[in-house]
């Protein structure tokens, strides 16, 4: 996916010509010759007429060296301490009022886009609209069909597209205001408008593509979060959540502070039935922690499970012809096999052991989990007779790192950031698992 996106960008860049964004130039370096040609081909005369001043390369160089730094400075200067939406908006206001001609607005917008995650406004459509508003209106709208055909004001268009792309990467749906602004700035046929149309085509289609959506705002309280996650894994509407212990801190006799971790468990009636039928001679296992990712948060759960029932212990309930008062539950046909009949149908049947219950806690040591098991005994008295083995990983520590791990805003590949983050975390995840199985 990332690859495809890069390709797409490359194409875009070629289309827009060489005077594209500063940040992209490095990407394109392998084929400068081709670009030179392209540029000449793409630029309309009108462009040259309007902006005959300096060669494009010159401006680029200047930008590279000075402008972004200046703009970054503005952000640092205005919003020194608290980086919020309000201060971000103030920076934008300061810029727009600074200069009627809005000199350097493309650079400013690029800098602002980069700064957005820092200010925590990367998912706010109004902020994007405000940024778009920085563009001077009506100047970049092509006036005739030739201008429309060729790349009119490529740098500005590219900047507009870049802004929309960042919106896309953060999953921000443009609104009508965005559309109106784009119309005012680039006209109905500009590349940003096309980008907007593509966004509006795909975004609604994909909005509900996930049948198990994670809400934007996850509950803050660990107990609520655990309830939410357990419900999500269990996928059984009958499953009942029990809070075995609320988190609290207490002073013990010697004055030391003890914290009690929260223990939240889930079990469905069918799991209770299954456990009740479990052969008490065979042990059950408490295993974990297993990770569950909810957007950028990773939580851990533990399961109570047993090995699959060996075939010799399986009892098939014999058919009782006196079971149903009204109709035969089975047809008692004396069917024989014939020579041509195939004996076995190929059905892949993999037996998995039953999972009896799940729980979440923030402190996965044996003592805490023991508390969970004893809590479970209230609804499952049979647990008192079954040997319970704890097979726990000490992996939590490493995993904790992955939660805290926050890669700094990756400037080049912002769009792929959430993915890479998840992937690295998952890799960290798998290591203890592997070790765990080897231990066995």
């Amino acid at each position, binding site marked *: 996916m990332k690859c495809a996106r890069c390709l797409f960008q490359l194409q875009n860049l070629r289309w827009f010509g060489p005077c594209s964004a500063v940040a992209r130039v490095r990407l394109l370096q392998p084929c400068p010759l081709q670009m030179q040609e392209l540029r000449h081909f793409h630029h309309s005369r009108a462009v040259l007429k309007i902006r005959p001043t300096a060669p494009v390369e010159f401006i680029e160089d200047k930008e590279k060296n000075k402008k972004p730094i200046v703009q970054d400075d503005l952000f640092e200067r205005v919003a020194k301490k608290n980086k919020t939406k309000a201060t971000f908006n103030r920076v934008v206001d300061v810029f727009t009022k600074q200069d009627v001609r809005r000199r350097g607005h493309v650079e400013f917008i690029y800098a602002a886009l980069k700064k957005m995650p820092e200010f925590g406004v990367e998912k706010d459509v109004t902020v994007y609209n405000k940024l778009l508003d920085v563009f001077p209106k009506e100047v970049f709208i092509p006036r005739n069909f030739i201008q429309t055909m060729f790349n009119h004001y490529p740098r500005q268009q590219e900047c507009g597209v870049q802004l929309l792309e960042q919106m896309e990467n953060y999953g921000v*749906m443009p*609104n009508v205001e965005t559309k109106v602004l784009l119309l005012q700035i680039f006209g109905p046929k500009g590349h940003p408008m096309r980008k907007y149309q593509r966004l*509006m085509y795909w*975004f*609604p289609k994909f*909005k*509900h593509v996930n049948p198990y959506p994670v809400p934007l705002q996850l509950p803050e309280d660990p107990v609520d979060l655990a309830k939410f996650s357990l419900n999500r894994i269990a996928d059984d*509407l009958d499953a009942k959540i029990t809070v075995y212990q609320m988190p609290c801190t207490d002073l013990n006799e010697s004055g030391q502070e003890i914290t009690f971790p929260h223990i939240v468990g889930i079990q469905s009636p069918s799991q209770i039935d299954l456990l009740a039928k479990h052969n008490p001679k065979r042990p059950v296992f408490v295993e974990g922690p297993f990770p569950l990712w909810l957007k950028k948060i990773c939580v851990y759960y533990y399961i109570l499970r047993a090995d699959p029932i060996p075939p010799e212990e399986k009892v098939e309930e014999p058919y*009782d012809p*006196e*079971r*149903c*008062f*009204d*109709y*035969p*539950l*089975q*047809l*008692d*046909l*004396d*069917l*024989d*096999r*014939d020579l*041509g*009949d*195939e004996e076995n*149908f190929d059905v892949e049947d993999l037996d998995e052991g039953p999972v009896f219950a799940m729980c979440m806690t923030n402190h996965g040591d044996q003592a805490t989990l023991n508390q969970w098991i004893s809590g479970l005994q209230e609804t499952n008295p049979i647990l008192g007779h079954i040997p319970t083995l704890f097979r726990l990983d000490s992996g939590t520590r490493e995993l904790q790192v992955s939660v805290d791990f926050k890669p700094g805003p990756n400037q080049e590949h912002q769009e792929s950031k959430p993915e890479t983050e998840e992937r690295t975390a998952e890799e960290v995840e798998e290591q203890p698992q592997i070790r765990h199985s080897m231990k066995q």
Partner: protein
Amino acid sequence: MNVNGILLLSKCVKQTGKRFLASHAGKQAVLLQQQQKRSFRTQSRQLAYAKDLFMGQVNKKEVFPFPEISNDEVEEISQLVAPVEKFFSEEVDSAKIDREAKIPPETLNGLKELGLFGMQIPEEYGGLGLSNTMYARLAEITALDGSIAVTLAAHQAIGLKGILIAGSEEQKKKYLPKLATGEHVAAFCLTEPGSGSDAASIQTRATLSEDGAHYLINGSKIWISNGGFADIMTVFARTEVEEKGVKKDKITAFIVERAFGGITSGKPEDKLGIRGSNTCEVAFDNVPVPIENVIGEVGGGFKVAMNILNSGRFSMGSSSAGMIKKLIELTSEYAASRKQFNKNLSEFGMIQEKFALMAMNAYVMESMAYLTAGMMDKPGLPDCSVEAAIVKIFSSEGGWICVSEALQVLGGVGYTKNYPFERYVRDCRILPIFEGTNEILRMYISLTGMQYAGKILTGKIKEMKKGNIGLALGMAGQKLRAALGASVDYGLTGKDGVVHPSLATIVDEQLVLKRVADVLINLYAMTAVLSRTSRSISIGLRNHDHEVLLANTFCTEAHFKNNYMLTQLQKHAPENNDANIKKIATQVLNNRAYVCSHPLERTY
């Protein structure tokens, strides 16, 4: 191997359908002339018409001619019917019974004096000793009030049936006389909170007392009709039985008197319809039942229950027919007098259609009910449980449609409590539910038929393997016929005639079974109609031309329905939407709610 069996079976059903195609125009002669493709029997001859349809055989001897009763019996029944009819039209206030949710004692006494509490009890025990046919005739009239009909049915169609069919001579002598006069009222206690048709989940338990003279019954039963005041109850409970040295729980039937003590009845249920009938929970707390009160043998309760349930159903046909006939009278009067746009309601096509539907349904129900009753009255051991189930399904569903159409004729007027129609609608709603829900009975019909046909076919195949040349030739002939284009692929066999794996689980293919049952219901209905009409023609009954008209119309309709259903049963039939239906249901059920988002919702 078994492929052939099932293929043949499905083919048979189809062929029978075809035969009726030929005969739907009322030319019963065609049916009579049809070549008798009688396969050799591996079982002794039994009276079974519907089951043999599964084998592709039309046992005409069973259904033609339409059963008649002797002149003496006709006289007797008309003497019986007149006072009952008078009683129901003059002394029964159905509206009041419905309003007060109670049948007044004087009405009950009137019923008892007429002998309606002992209709089928033999005369030697003080009952009327009516045959099934005569019982069905009286049910037509008692059905005019749903509450009374249900009370009577709970008393004698199921409540005391156990004693009647499986009780010992002593039990009969002891209980039947009082039950016949109505001094004692009976009830049938089978259903439990956790058990409808599932015998394995019956929790009520009977344990033998230490001296071995009593059983102690513990448990509770729900939805017991007459449970509030019944004096004698047929109770089914779990007992421990030793079988080949292994102790097993089996169901046993008991006669329990309220006088034994320990029986408490709950509050009567507040129901939608049949409000005058008493339905409540009955709890048994260490009720001592003497050992001689076991019906049949210990552990044999399952058979008793099945026989009672299977035998009680046929009368619903005549009850529904009686009710519809009454409704036709009531609504046609309204339709003829009410004017719209200077036209009588009865001149509008859509209203006329409703009356035709009602008449047709009543006619079919009557025919089926009396045909079945006649078959049951024939000497010998009749096996009419499938037929009875068919009658029950057809009449309960037809009854519901007719009653609501009758109400529709009256429009808003019918919806008010000033007219009896809304009461009929409410009363009628119970018919598809009780005495075995229609869904369960459909399963019963198709599975019993398949079991029957399957046994015979597998037996035949075994014979053939042993080298019975005649049989092999017969089968080869059938195969040849199938190869010449008479066969349809029902998707039951794979390549090289391998049995489709789904055949082992045909019991779980409820949608297929439902269609098979529906086909059979239509076939039986057509048979009954044809049989009755041909009799009417031959003996020249009054208005038999109208009967022919009804028969033609119904048979054409049923024939097309059957054709459609058989097409649906074919492999890859585009008419068959079962897979999608199942998918929709699963998604909705997994969600436990309506799945789609609201039409007014937006994504941007």
